[in-house]
């Protein structure tokens, strides 16, 4: 009798283990999952919309798209009557960062917000609940050349920040034009840059120094007797930009400054740039297109400081129609929860098609981050990053119901706990999710950590 029981238990245990093994695979510590999404309306982005279609994700990758896919023993989601789209990508976020600005120097290319990742920030789960699977965690806009950024995947529940990095995503760096760096350094610290003219010189001076540094290193390495030159992580990084190894993401508003920076980059042979915010992008859309620059904009957010008054909700449309690869970003822990609404506004202002509007939050930001071969559309071989919606994602009634990252269901509206915190401080008096909703998203945008009051972005 006892033996039988043990026997049964062993079989039961083995079965459990097998299920666990087939459901999730750990590749270098990163959890990869298997899931079959049945009978959804699949918005592929790059290959049309497919009704009643299944999507099979195995080992974290999209393996099959088609009708009537049948697999035994796999986690299955019934998407009948629901919309299946690629996970949303936000090209501008500051969520999950313990530090955003190293605001003490106008040029801090050496710093890297990847060092400050905080995967315990509940805002990240809320972004996930808005269908966002990938975000560009950025340095702030306090400095002309701020720090390097980090492309993260919203793998909520993973305690190790290392596992939030999107491995092999290209390096990116934050630049900033205009009022923010002028105020932080010029007004407050009484050092350059104080003016928009001074801004330009920060870039030129930095690139010139990096060129010189590269030269010195080359000489040193070719001469046996010479000493190793003084190491500078700042100049190393700037040299990497000159070598085309880092994509620039530049905080910008005014058209004149946008043109200025493109001229500087041209002079130094730098090509990869995405202008962020770029509220006056509509004025220089053809020039942006010609340079090959991309643009990541707000749908309709402006007038929070002087240089952001000349703006229009048609910005995304005008840029798109001029052939500029454009995305819509959040720069906010609130907007990131409904980027699909933000994208839909381009249909109200500008009549973009469904596909054009959805590209703004999927494949286009993927291109801007250099990860379009991995994410941004539902395509065989791409990462299993999916958002499933009740109602069309561009409808005002859209509700995200599942968010899947690498084939792992990270958000399920039916299993959405009251308290999602993964790191609980017993001393915390007010639980995080009761915390009064911060008064204004401006407080936590790209100027956080620079001063105690005033504007952001």
């Amino acid at each position: 009798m006892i033996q039988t029981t043990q026997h049964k238990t062993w079989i039961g245990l083995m079965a459990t283990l097998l299920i666990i093994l087939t459901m999730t695979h750990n590749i270098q510590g990163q959890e990869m999952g298997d899931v079959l999404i049945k009978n959804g309306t699949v918005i592929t982005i790059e290959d049309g919309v497919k009704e009643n279609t299944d999507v099979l994700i195995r080992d974290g990758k999209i393996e099959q798209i088609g009708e009537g896919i049948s697999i035994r023993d796999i986690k299955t989601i019934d998407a009948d009557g629901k919309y299946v789209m690629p996970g949303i990508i936000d090209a501008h976020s500051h969520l999950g960062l313990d530090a955003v600005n190293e605001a003490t120097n106008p040029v801090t290319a050496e710093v890297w917000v990847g060092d400050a990742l905080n995967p315990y920030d509940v805002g990240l789960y809320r972004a996930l609940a808005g269908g966002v699977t990938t975000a560009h965690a950025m340095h702030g806009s306090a400095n002309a050349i701020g720090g390097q950024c980090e492309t993260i995947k919203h793998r909520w529940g993973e305690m190790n920040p290392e596992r939030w990095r999107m491995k092999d995503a290209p390096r990116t760096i934050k630049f900033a034009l205009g009022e923010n760096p002028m105020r932080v350094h010029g007004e407050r610290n009484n050092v350059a840059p104080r003016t928009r003219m001074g801004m330009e010189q920060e870039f030129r001076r930095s690139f010139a120094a990096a060129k010189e540094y590269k030269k010195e290193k080359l000489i040193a390495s070719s001469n046996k007797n010479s000493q190793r030159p003084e190491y500078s992580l700042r100049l190393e990084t700037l040299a990497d930009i000159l070598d085309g190894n880092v994509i620039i993401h530049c905080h910008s508003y005014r058209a004149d400054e946008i043109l200025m920076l493109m001229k500087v980059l041209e002079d130094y042979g730098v090509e990869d740039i995405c202008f962020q915010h770029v509220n006056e992008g509509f004025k220089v859309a053809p020039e942006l297109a010609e340079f090959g620059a991309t643009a990541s904009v707000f749908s309709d957010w402006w007038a929070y400081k002087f240089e952001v008054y000349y703006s229009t909700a048609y910005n995304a449309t005008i840029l798109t129609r001029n052939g500029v690869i454009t995305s819509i970003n959040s720069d906010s822990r609130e907007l990131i929860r409904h980027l699909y609404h933000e994208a839909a506004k381009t249909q109200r202002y500008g009549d973009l098609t469904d596909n054009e509007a959805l590209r703004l939050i999927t494949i286009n930001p993927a291109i801007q981050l250099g990860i379009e071969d991995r994410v941004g559309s539902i395509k065989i071989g791409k990462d299993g990053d999916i958002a499933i919606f009740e109602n069309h994602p561009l409808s005002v009634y859209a509700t995200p119901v599942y968010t899947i990252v690498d084939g792992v269901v990270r958000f399920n509206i039916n299993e959405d706990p009251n308290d999602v915190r993964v790191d609980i401080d017993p001393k915390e008096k007010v639980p995080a999710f009761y915390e009064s909703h911060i008064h204004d998203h401006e407080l936590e945008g790209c100027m956080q950590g620079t001063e105690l009051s005033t504007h952001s972005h």
Partner: protein
Amino acid sequence: MTIKHLKSVLFVLTFVTACIYEGNSQVDYDKYPKASNSYFIKDVYAYTNGEMSTSMTNIVIKDGFISEIGPRVKQPKGAIPLELDSMYVYPAFIDVLSHPLKSEEKKDRDDVKFPGLPSDLIAGITPDQSMTVKLKSEKVSLGKMRENGFGISQLAFDHGMLPGSTSIVLLADATDARGLTETTNQVLQFKGAGGVYPNTIIGVMAKFRDLYRNAEAYDSNQKAYSQSATGVSLPTSSQAIAALVPLTQGKETLYIRTKKKLNNYRAIQLKEELGFNAVLIDPVDITGIEQDLKDSRLPIVFSTTMAKEVKSPERVKDSTYSQLDLETLELKEKAFDAYMSRVNQVNRAIDLEIPVAFASLEKSGSDIKESMALMVENGMLESDAINALTMSPAKILGIEKLAGSIAKQKVASLMITDKPYFEEKSNIRTMIVGTEVHEYEAKAKDKKEGSSDIDPVGKWSFTLETPGGDDTGKIIIEPAGDQYTVTIYQDSDSDDQKVINDVDLEGSNMEFGFSVTEGSMSVNVEVTLEFLGENELEGNVKYGDFGTFPLMGDKTSAPE
């Protein structure tokens, strides 16, 4: 320094220093022949091989070393007998890192013309500052740590990101009797320089990488120069960079004060990128990241106040269950579980075979017994607890051949108690550190539960470091029954004040909050204060989501 060498040094020093101790806790030397450097301990229980002996034994100490141990060992000629009959002898505790010096005064940042390029001193980058040198030039009292059972400690500075090199010493009173090893180490703290570069965690990380790579370059240049100086210019570097060379060569270890769960990952990141030896100090809470820490293979050193730092959240009583909504109940249970998880974290680390130890940091180890008792009460083996305070730290510090257990040839670093250490109302009665013997009275009475020596009442002035510069203000603390009333002036010259009633003092900590309204915007301000003694406090001020800023204060007067 070899043991033999150390012995001869100690031997000579014994004669010179035997009579110049201060304080009132030592042996009455007039009773004994002054020139003797041997002690005889008869009929005691000794903690060896992870347990307390069941039969009594004798120990002979000579020239600061244990020279004999065993039940048949006889009193050598001239050895001073110590009256410790039937007491319990433990290896004295080893403290992996302590900050015995009062924090240095803040450097004036107003002189910094360009915040992006402060001097190394203002940036908190002083790895060239030596504790060994400081100990020679300044009188540093270590008696308090010894009183709590510690015989050996690694002393370190505590300002800035790279405060200086450490010194591992015997906690003797006489400066010359402290020598133990020439090994020094470096300390890294994830501490911004307060408004100047590097100000944030991202700045500190980048700056460390930069300094480290430069130290490597300097080292390689020096090597090249020493091989052939012909046609090569003399390598140069800042003092700070030169001081990091031993770390890059693997001759020193970096003790990284993490203070925050995620900083443990940052420490590991740097270690894996740059490849130095490291130890994690004060990780605060390793819940949920234990396996990652194990995989990093770094030893973990907990704060001696670790378990005590958090007051146990009150568990919800059955009678009040019905009055609470499920959500609140769930939150309270979670807070309690999180607390228990902290209490048990050292034990979990031990189960994972992570080398663990303790550090007294700013606290002189005064909470060690209470902390350890709490852990033992919750399932830690006493032998694991003692190991984490003796052999394990000895190995982490690389002094296991010199200290960490009671054995022949080891340094006499012994704690002698009247009852087994973990038994209730046990007292440390004698501490032997090298050539010094310090005796203590049994404590008359236990202190009232939760009471503390700290009296926060009075007028305090404080400096708050914000990225926009330093702000100064004052705090007045007045007693109000068992609690306190706190009045905070955010600017010392203005009458703009906030009064907070019913503030509790928990140990030496105080927490309170208020909100500030400006226009349509209101910000919740949370203040945590820690009283470091009679006249000093430090803390943090959290301004909503703007950030958390460090605060430091001094008592200006008692209340008027």
